C-alpha cells in the first residue's frame, strides 16, 4: 500500500445514538510529528482509543505499517510498536516513578517477548537514559501519586518510550505544564522524533502544535474539517471559525 506508519481509514464510532467519530481518514508518515487538534468533545481521545485498540470502531479500518490491525487486541498492537499516553492520567498509582517505568519493561518482557531487555545492566541503563531525557531523575523514587500533573504526563511518556515504539500517540501531553516546561517539552518531542519514533499528537496548546508538528489534522464534531501544514491550518477559514474562533469568544 503506502509507506505510512499509521493509516486510519473511514473510522466511525457511535455511542448509543451519538456519533463521536464520523468517517475519519488520516495518516501518519514515518519520522514525522502529526498533530490532531479540535475542540473538546471533537472525538480525538475516542480516535486514539480506536487506534490503540481499547475501543472497537463501528466502521472503518486501522493499518499499522501496512498491516490491518482493526481487530487486533490492544496488547498485541502495543507489541507491534504502538505506544500511547492518556489524557486522563493512567499511572500505576501504587508504584514509584521508576517502578512505573520498570514495570513497563517487565510487562512487555512477560512470557519472553522483548529482546534486548533480558539482561539487567542494559535495562538499568535504559531506565536511566529515559529518566534523563524526560528530566524525571530527581523524582525517580517518588510515588506516582505525589508528583504534579505535568511530571505525571512525562512519566507516562517515559513509560511508553522505553518500549521503543514505532509510533507514539500522545493525548494532550502538555496540559498541566507551564509555558517554560511546554517549550522544553516541544524540544523533547523533536528529539524523540529524530530518533526514529513517529508521533501522533493531540494537543490544545497551539504554540506547541504549530512549532513542532509537520502536519496537522483538525477534527470537529467527529469529522475532519482540515488537513495541512501548520501554516496552512492557521489560515484555514473553517478552522478559524470552528476552533480558534470559538476560543477567542
Amino acid at each position: 500500500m503506502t509507506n505510512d506508519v499509521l493509516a486510519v481509514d473511514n473510522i466511525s464510532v457511535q455511542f448509543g445514538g451519538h456519533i463521536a467519530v464520523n468517517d475519519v481518514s488520516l495518516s501518519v508518515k514515518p519520522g514525522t510529528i502529526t498533530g490532531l487538534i479540535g475542540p473538546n468533545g471533537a472525538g480525538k481521545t475516542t480516535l486514539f482509543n480506536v487506534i490503540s485498540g481499547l475501543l472497537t470502531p463501528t466502521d472503518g479500518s486501522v493499518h499499522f505499517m501496512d498491516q490491518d490491525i482493526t481487530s487486533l487486541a490492544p496488547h498485541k498492537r502495543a507489541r507491534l510498536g504502538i505506544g500511547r499516553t492518556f489524557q486522563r492520567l493512567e499511572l500505576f498509582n501504587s508504584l514509584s516513578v521508576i517502578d512505573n517505568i520498570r514495570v513497563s519493561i517487565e510487562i512487555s518482557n512477560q512470557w519472553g517477548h522483548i529482546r534486548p531487555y533480558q539482561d539487567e545492566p542494559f535495562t538499568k541503563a535504559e531506565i536511566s537514559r529515559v529518566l534523563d531525557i524526560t528530566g524525571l531523575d530527581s523524582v525517580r523514587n517518588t510515588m506516582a501519586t505525589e508528583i504534579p500533573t505535568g511530571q505525571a504526563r512525562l512519566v507516562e511518556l517515559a513509560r511508553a518510550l522505553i518500549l521503543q515504539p514505532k509510533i507514539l500517540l500522545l493525548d494532550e501531553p502538555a496540559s498541566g505544564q507551564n509555558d517554560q516546561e511546554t517549550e522544553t517539552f516541544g524540544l523533547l518531542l523533536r528529539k524523540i522524533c529524530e530518533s526514529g519514533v513517529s508521533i501522533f499528537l493531540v494537543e490544545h496548546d497551539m504554540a506547541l502544535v504549530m512549532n513542532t508538528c509537520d502536519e496537522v489534522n483538525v477534527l470537529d464534531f467527529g469529522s475532519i474539517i482540515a488537513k495541512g501544514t501548520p501554516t496552512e491550518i492557521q489560515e484555514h477559514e473553517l478552522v478559524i471559525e470552528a476552533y480558534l474562533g470559538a476560543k477567542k469568544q
Partner: protein
Amino acid sequence: MTEFLTFTVVGLATGAIYSIASAGLVVTYTTSGIFNFAHGAIGMFSAFLYWQLRWDEGWGGFWPAPIALVFVLFIAAPIIGILLQLIVMRGLEGTSETTKLVIPIAVMLAFIGITNWVWQGAEQRIPKPFFGRNAKWSIGDAYITWHQTIIVIAAIGLAIALRFLLFNTKIGVTMRAVVDNPELVELNGGRPNRSAMQSWAIGSIMAAIAGVLISPLLGGLGVLALTLLVVNAYAAAIFGRLKNLPLTFIGGLVIGLSVSYWNWISKTGQKWPWLSELRTTLPIVILFCVLLLLPQDRLRGNRPESLREQFRVPSIRATILWSFALVSIISGLSLIISSKWEALLTRGLTMAIIGLSMVLLTGYAGELNLAPLAFAGIGAIAAFQFDVGSTVETGPGFATLATLLAVGFGFLVFPAFGLVKRRLFIAVTAFSLFVFILVVFFDGTTGTGIASRESMSLSGLVVAALITASVGATVALPAIRLRGLYLALATFAFAIFVDKMVYKQRETLTFDIPLIGDSEDLSINLFNNGALNIPRPKFWGIDFGEKQWAMLIFVSIIFCCISVALIQLRKSSYGRQLTAMKDSPAACATLGMNMRRLKLSVFTLAAAIAGFGGALHASNLRTIQEDYPFTIWEGLALFMLTVVGGIGYISGALFGGIIYACAFIVMGDFWGKLAEDWRSFDWLFTFLQDFFLLLGPALAGIGLGRNPSGVASQIFDGFRILRKRENKGIIGIGSLLIAFSWFLRVIDVYNGWIFIMTSLPILFLMPLLGDANTRDRDQSKDKSIEMAGIDFQFSDEFISFIDKELSIPSNPMWKESRNNDE
C-alpha cells in the same frame, strides 16, 4: 401433554417470581450503581415477617392476609429500603468496587443474623399458599393453583406498573437517563437522593413480594434456603445486563421454565442421582453461563478512588521481624492459655492462611473472588480423597496424577516469574520431580491403602494445593475475561455450585481414566456421606493430633512463611505487574500486557494457597461437614472481615482470620458467662451474647468496611510512632511490663483474665504515650490539614509542610504577598 402443561405452569409461576425479584435488583442497580447483594435476604426476611403476622400467635397473631400483606409489602419493605439507603448505601458513592461489594454483603449477613435471632428454635414454620393448598382451577387435565395464578397476575401487574414508572415519572426518567449515558447523568449531578431513596424503596418492595410469594413453594421457612432462592433471580438480572427490564423479565421466565423442565426430564432429580442437586443449582449455572456470554465492558482506567486505596508494602526485613514476633507471641501465649483458646487461635490462623489467598488475588491483583472457602473446601476434599481418604483407588495412579498436576501448575505459574524456554522446562521438571519424590518416597504412599494411615502428610497438603490450583485454573479460564462485579458474581455462582453439587454430593462417581491408575476406574465419593474425617499431621516425632499447642505454633510458622513469600512476590517483577493491572488495566493493555495469562496465573496461585489452607484448616478441625466450615456464607463473612482488616495487607488477612474464628465467639462467651453469673441481668447479657454471635461480623463489615486501607493497617500505624528514637523507652518499659505479667501468669500467680486485663491496657497505652511524647517534642508535624487555622495558627513551616504533602512547588511570591498583607 398434561405433564408438559403442569410443568410449564409451575415453571412460569416460579419464573414470574424471579422476574419480580430481579426487576427490583435492576431498579436499585441502575439508579445507585450498587448491586444489592442483600436483595435475597430482604425477600427472606419479609417472608418470615409475613409468616409471623399471619400464622403465629405472637405479635397480635393471625392477621388477615390483606392487612398482613399491606403491612409487609407497603410499610415494612419500603421502610427497610429507605433506611438502607439513608444509613448504609448513600455513603458508598465514589468508593471502590470492593467496598461497593462488601457493604451489601455485610447487610445481607446482617439480615440473615437478625432473622436467625428473632426466629430462633427449630420449630417448623410453614407458610401457606394464598387461598390454601387446594384452591385450584384447571386447563384440560392440568391444574393451576390460585397461588400460581396470583403470582402470574402480580408479575404482569408489576411489569405494567414499572413501565408506567419508567416513562411517566421523574425517577423513571432518571433511571432511563442513567442507562443511556451513566457518565453524563453523573456529570449533571444526577442520582439525587430522593430518587435513590424511591428506588431503594421500590427494590425492597419487589424483594418482599418475591419472598412472600416464593416461601410457600418451600416445605418450611429456612433462612439460608429462602435467601438462596431469591438469589436465583440474580441470573435474570444479569440476563438483562442489569439495565434492561423487559429482558430481565424474560430472563426470569427462562430460568423458571428451565428448572421446571429439568425437573420433568430428570424426574425431580431421581433419574441421574449425582445430578439431583441441579434442581436447585440450575439458576446459578445459568448465571455463570450468562455472565460468560455477556459482551464485556471496555477496559477500565483508573478511578479517583484508587488514590484512596493504597497499600504500603513493608520491607522483607520488617516482614521477617514481624514473623518472628508473631511466632514468639503465639508460643508465649500457648504456655498460658487453655486448650480451648489454643484451638480457637489455630482456627483463626488457618483461616488467615486462606485469607492470604485473597490478599494475593484481591489485594495485590485487584481481582474479586467471593469463593475463597469453596477453594478451601476443595483443598480439604482433595486432601481427604488423595491422602487419608478411603474412596479413591490409590497407588501409582496417585503419584502419576500428582506429578501431572505439578507439571500443569508449573507451566501455568512459573512463566509469570520470568521463567521461559529452557529455564521454564528445567524448573517444571525439577518441581514435578520434587512432587513425585515427595509422594512416592517421602510419605511412602507408593501404593496400598492410604486409607489406613491416620495422619495428614506433607504430600497430602501439597497435592491438595495442586488439585485446588487446577480447579482454580479451570474456573478462571472461562471467567478470566470478566471484571469487577461480574467476576464477583461468577465466583459467587461457583461457590454456590460447590456448596450444593460437591458438598451435598452423595453418589459415588466412577470415571474411566486412561493411563492413570492401576485399576481401570477412578471412583470417588466426593463428600463421603456428609462428613470427612481429616486427621492432624504427624512428623519429626511430633503428633499434632495430641498437642494443640504444637499445631498452633506449626500453623503460625506456616502463616509466616507464606506471608514472607507473598511480600517477596509483591516486590518482584510479577508483583509489580499485578499491581499495575490492578491500578490501570487500560494502561497495561497499551503497554502490551496479556492480562488473561497474568490473571490465570494469579488465580491458579491463589487457589493453591486457599486449597493448602483449607486442607490445613480441615486437618485442624479433624472433621468437616457439608454445612461447616466451608460454606458460601462463611466464605462471604471471611472475605468481608479480611476487607475490614485490609485486604492489601498480610495483617489484614491475619485480622480477618482471627476475628472471624475467635473474636465474636469470645465476646459471645464473655456475655454468656456474665449472664450466668448475674442472673438478674440475664436478659441483657443474653441479648449481648446473641448480638455478638449473630450480628457481630455483619456489623463490623457495615461499620468498618468503608475504611479503604483496613483496620489492621490503622492499628499498625498507631504503633508506628513507637519506632521513633525518643519512644524507645516506652517500648522497653511496656514490653517489660507485659513480659512480667506473662511470667506471673506462667508461674500461676494469677489467671488468664488478669493477664489480659493487665497487658491489653499496657499495649494500647504504648502508642498513645508515644504519640503524646512525640507531639511534645515536635509541634509542627502531624497536624491534620483540616484543622489548620482552627486548632493552631498557620506558620510558614506548616505551609511548606502542606506544600510538600500536596506536592506543590513552594511559591515565594505568594508567601511574600501574604507577609505584605500582614
